[in-house]
């Protein structure tokens, strides 16, 4: 777990810069993706780039403008949009549980050396939590009331430490970018799939270069799948990393392990989450059976690593740390 602080510090700076780099790559890919979808729609549907077609590649320019707009929006207002979609509210400090939550977040912010993030509460019985924001100065942490009811102080502390770890490693930038950009891709691919199949019917006899048609068709048909897999692969490693970083903060792996166990046993689907936001959460809010299994297929299909494996790793850390008495 916690190596020398020197090593940790380098580690986390490295993680931050890797996340920033990956975010840039993803935005770039997103733009390229929109550009090529725009080009293929122009080519297949509007017959641009062929003699006799329109001179101006309308769909391409439109797609580029839209994708730039979406990227900027998701960078600056992405977390606000997601928070509003989830129905998050500010905590009511008159309630003892909310006061306790605020105190715990303050503690973890101190332990990590991050500035205090904004706190939000979702009134929902499903125990879950998430963190968002483009950097540590614009971060928010969101917790369901179900989680506050279910867990003890020490266990909540573990969960909050996990979320703060996402913020400090700057996973939140990447994650909120992905969730807004994915929404854009899903929308576009639905739309282009329909238009391509319509055009294939009407212009069956016309000559088009097969070399161009095949990749553009491929792109239009498989893009949603590819983007999903990308989001999943990106998210799972980060969950393990955030668990490890959380233990660096609390020096108490058992709190987090017990929290995971309790949440697994009490799990229920969280209805306000969607496929676009699932990877943001502490445990998978969509609650599919594959999350509890291990193996190739489960690895490929799930946004979260199997809970059993996370718990096992945490207990291992507790063993290695010599079973220090928990704080709080």
């Amino acid at each position, binding site marked *: 777990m916690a190596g020398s602080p020197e090593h940790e510090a380098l580690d986390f700076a490295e993680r931050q810069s890797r996340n920033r780099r990956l975010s840039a790559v993803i935005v770039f890919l997103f733009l390229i993706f929109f550009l090529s979808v725009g080009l293929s729609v122009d080519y297949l549907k509007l017959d641009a780039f062929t003699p006799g077609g329109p001179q101006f590649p309308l769909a391409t320019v439109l797609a580029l403008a839209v994708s730039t707009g979406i990227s900027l929006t998701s960078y600056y207002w992405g977390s606000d949009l997601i928070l509003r979609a989830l129905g998050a509210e500010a905590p009511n400090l008159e309630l003892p549980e909310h006061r306790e939550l605020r*105190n715990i977040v303050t503690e973890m912010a*101190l332990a990590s050396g991050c500035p205090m993030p904004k706190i939000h509460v979702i009134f929902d019985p499903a125990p879950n939590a998430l963190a968002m924001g483009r950097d540590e100065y614009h971060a928010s942490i969101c917790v369901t009331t179900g989680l506050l009811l279910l867990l003890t102080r020490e266990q909540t502390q573990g969960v909050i430490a996990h979320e703060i770890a996402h913020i400090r490693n700057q996973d939140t930038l990447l994650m909120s970018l992905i969730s807004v950009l994915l929404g854009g891709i899903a929308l576009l691919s639905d739309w282009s799939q329909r238009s391509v199949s319509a055009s294939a019917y009407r212009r069956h006899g016309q000559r088009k270069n097969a070399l161009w048609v095949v990749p553009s068709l491929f792109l239009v048909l498989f893009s949603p799948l590819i983007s999903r897999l990308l989001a999943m692969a990106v998210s799972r490693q980060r969950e393990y990393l955030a668990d490890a970083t959380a233990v660096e903060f609390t020096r108490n792996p058992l709190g987090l392990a017990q929290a995971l166990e309790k949440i697994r046993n009490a799990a229920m689907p969280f209805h306000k989450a969607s496929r676009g936001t699932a990877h943001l959460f502490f445990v998978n809010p969509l609650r599919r059976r594959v999350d509890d299994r291990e193996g190739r297929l489960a690895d490929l299909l799930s946004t979260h690593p199997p809970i059993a494996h996370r718990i096992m790793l945490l207990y291992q850390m507790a063993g290695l740390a010599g079973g220090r008495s928990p704080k709080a």
Partner: protein
Amino acid sequence: MRWVILAILILAAVWVIWTYNLLVSLRHRIQNGWKQIDVQLKRRHDLIPNLVEAVRGYMKYEQETLEKVMQARSRAVSSTGVKETAQAENLLTQSLGRIFALMENYPDLKANENVLKLQEELTTTENQISFARQYYNDLVMRYNMQQEVFPSSLVAKFFNFGPSEFFSVPEAERATPRVNLSLQA
């Protein structure tokens, strides 16, 4: 050949500047970390009399323990310097822990909303102190190590950086607390 030497000199200068700035920024972060601890310690000093007043009526047979906490508090308030403060505050932490443990014996206390609120406030302050201390000590360790590791030690010596002091945890706090032995008699 001249260019090679020039390039090496420039690289060396850049490295010296970088190391110097790293050390300075670490020193500032350590000072800031110490302030964070200080804020929490002050908060604890303010909260303790409130808690003692709130519990005094219930805990009739533990007046001595309560007195001890107040004494430890006044000693902690008047202490100065990292080492002395650390010692006094650790004593205070121990006596507070004793009160929390004794409070378990009084079910009436758990029904009192004011006491519960104070208890949560003190718990979070205790935690904040220990997390701030953890962060502070990590920084101090990095700072001191940076001064001793070979190439950067040259820069540290040249510019007269000195090692910082740890906010240490005494052995007494690490050992299992023997709360019940002395107090149930």
